[in-house]
């Protein structure tokens, strides 16, 4: 028998010996976590900085002050709506710069004003026919090349603007007749091929109608499915099969839903192409699994004691669900729905197949009007050759992100206000 050591090893010694190492490991573990947070925040802020840095310019648009004379001559013999308003703009430009004499020079001169100026004048006369015959100073939007030059996105040597045009612009600037003003068109107009007239309202309305259909269909169907599966369905092979398939459906790439929409809603049912109605139906298919899964999870988190108590005091199963379980599960269901809707808001792939990736100028007024959607608008502008669409693409992205942040914020608030903990 060997002799006992003088100091028997106590467990506290073993603990103490390893303590430093454990502290270090703990610190390392925390640092890795913190590092992960820092990395993701850095990427997020890089994204925001780059998008806002590029897109903030689109909030303002260069306008120029023109002395418009609503010459009664152009209104003779035609309706006020059909008059040649472009001539009024040309006359005003000509009065200001009489040095443009040749045909080419005149063309260059007319080129510094947006072709939307004529529509602006038309709108003014339609609103107030009393303008005819009067003279007025009016701010009209400048051509996109001028806008880019003023904003510093286009160098004067590019050749996009001729020497004459540059000289005219300088003179306008010297007379303070060139100013950046709030870009109302961007928030009130539909798509356009002229960057200075292009707006996101058309795409935003398209997204709104599409999401409304999606919400109206996917929320009730999703919640009803979840309630049935969770509260009523017997546990057997069939319900297992359904469950597996719902989970599978959640993982299907979104373009597949677009193909399905094309085959079923357009070809078999004969619904109109490019309509928010069909877009909504397709996105419903896509969001349903998300909502069902979230709703089931939140139903499961309602303690069984609530159900037992309700049944115990004589409530029917339907009363138990509608009066007690559902209100408690609602915050989770709503959160799931909003997250599903946020994903639907950002989708373009399924919309491609059903014709919503399209150039649509008129702002949709209903569920069957042709419409595009916000992410589609971003995609189409990103692909346009005009330089000025670059900042508009970024500005549209900002709008989409804003929508997403608002929706997700709404989900957080709902959860905070309605959630109950046990």
């Amino acid at each position: 028998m060997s002799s006992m050591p003088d100091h028997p090893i106590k467990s506290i010694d073993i603990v103490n010996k390893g303590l430093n190492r454990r502290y270090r490991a703990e610190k390392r573990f925390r640092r890795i976590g913190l590092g992960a947070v820092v990395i993701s925040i850095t990427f997020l802020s890089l994204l925001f900085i780059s998008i806002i840095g590029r897109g903030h310019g689109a909030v303002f648009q260069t306008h120029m002050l023109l002395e418009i004379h609503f010459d009664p001559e152009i209104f003779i013999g035609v309706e006020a709506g059909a008059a040649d308003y472009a001539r009024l703009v040309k006359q005003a430009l000509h009065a200001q710069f009489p040095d443009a004499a040749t045909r080419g020079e005149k063309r260059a001169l007319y080129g510094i004003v947006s072709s939307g100026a004529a529509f602006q004048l038309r709108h003014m006369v339609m609103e107030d026919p009393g303008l005819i015959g009067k003279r007025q100073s009016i701010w009209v939007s400048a051509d996109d090349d001028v806008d880019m030059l003023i904003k510093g996105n286009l160098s004067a040597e590019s050749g996009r603007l001729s020497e004459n045009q540059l000289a005219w612009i300088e003179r306008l600037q010297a007379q303070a007749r060139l100013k950046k003003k709030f870009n109302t068109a961007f928030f009130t107009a539909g798509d356009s091929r002229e960057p200075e007239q292009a707006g996101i309202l058309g795409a935003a309305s398209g997204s709104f109608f599409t999401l409304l259909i999606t919400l109206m269909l996917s929320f009730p169907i999703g919640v009803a499915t979840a309630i049935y599966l969770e509260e009523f369905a017997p546990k057997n092979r069939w319900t297992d099969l359904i469950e597996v398939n719902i989970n599978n459906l959640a993982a299907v790439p979104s373009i597949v839903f677009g193909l399905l929409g094309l085959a079923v809603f357009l070809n078999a049912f004969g619904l109109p192409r490019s309509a928010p109605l069909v877009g909504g139906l397709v996105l419903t298919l896509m969001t349903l699994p998300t909502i069902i899964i979230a709703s089931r999870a939140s139903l499961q988190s309602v303690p069984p004691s609530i159900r037992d108590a309700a049944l115990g005091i004589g409530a029917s199963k339907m009363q138990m669900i509608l009066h007690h379980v559902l209100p408690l599960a609602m915050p989770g269901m709503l959160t799931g729905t909003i997250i599903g809707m946020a994903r639907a808001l950002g989708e373009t792939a399924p919309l491609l197949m059903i014709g919503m990736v399209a150039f649509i100028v008129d702002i949709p007024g209903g569920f069957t009007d042709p419409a595009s959607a916000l992410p589609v608008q971003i995609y189409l502008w990103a692909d346009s050759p005009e330089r000025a669409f670059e900042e508009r693409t970024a500005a549209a992205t900002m709008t989409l992100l804003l929508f997403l942040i608002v929706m997700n914020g709404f989900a957080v608030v709902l959860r905070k206000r309605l959630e109950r903990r046990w």
Partner: protein
Amino acid sequence: MFKKAMYLTVSLALLGFFATTPAAADAARDYVSIVGSSTVYPFATVVAEQFGKTTAFKTPKIESTGSGGGFQLFCTGVGVSYPDITNASRRMKKSECALCEKNGVQAVVEVKIGYDGIVMANTKKAKRLSLTRKALYLALAKKVPDPSGKEAWVENPYKTWKDIDAALPAKKIEVLGPPPTSGTRDAFVELVMENGAKSFGWIKAMDKKEFKNAAHTLREDGVYIEAGENDNLIVQKLEANPDALGIFGFSFLDQNTDKIQGAKIDGVAPSFDAIADGSYPVSRPLFFYVKKAHVGKIPGIAEYLKAFSSEKAWGPEGYLADKGLIPMPDAERKKTAADVANLNELPCDGLN
């Protein structure tokens, strides 16, 4: 209260769905529906927008589906649920015309709208290149004729432009271009690669299928980089990489003249005038096709055709020229406009 809200939502949803469905399916369409090429898209949209703003008709709806996808949709049938017009950056194929006929789309009117140049450009920070179609073929084909002059194929050995032609700079060959799904790629292969291959007599003498195989296959060793359909992206990449050459449509060069420059091809630089008079060799015609059966049924088609074929739109001073479309010569424009006005049909037999 909650119950009520729930019932209300459900019934509203169902009502909304069933109320709109049959109405929408039966209703006549009151706007022109256009599909097709992404190359023609920037031009067709300008006409559509002008048309919508200056007439009482609604603005036509234009989908960018690619030329092939456009013909597929266009030829599916006659009726409000099918498009009225399809844009194309190449001529309709015989097989597509046959598909149309099979599905009852008998009478189709072809409208040539003008030309589009394909440019090979690099950043302005580097020197402008002067290339030939033969040099481009040798730079980009997967298999090229043996440099020693034998009539045999070798894997493309060229690393720098100087390897191909001593007059060219000693810079790495690096070309960013569109993927095979793109009409621009089709046109590039046809106009540059085929032409370059034909400069070798023995390749030219090969049978059609073998020749196509030889001329159409691009390098896969990283020299030709498929940069996606987005031409803006290619322009941005060119700025970052002074050695790279990009392939895209003339309108993108036109809009970015402060950043990039087009290489001379066979001695001619890509400019509006050089493409218009045909001296710049790499240009292709653009088209759209109209379903005659829809004219008069869908409001606005005839008027849209008239707007498109007006001098104000496609003339040398027209607004399409401002967007980079190269107009046809005067006589051809006049003739096409007359054909369009009479809705002259396109026979399938004349197509390839």
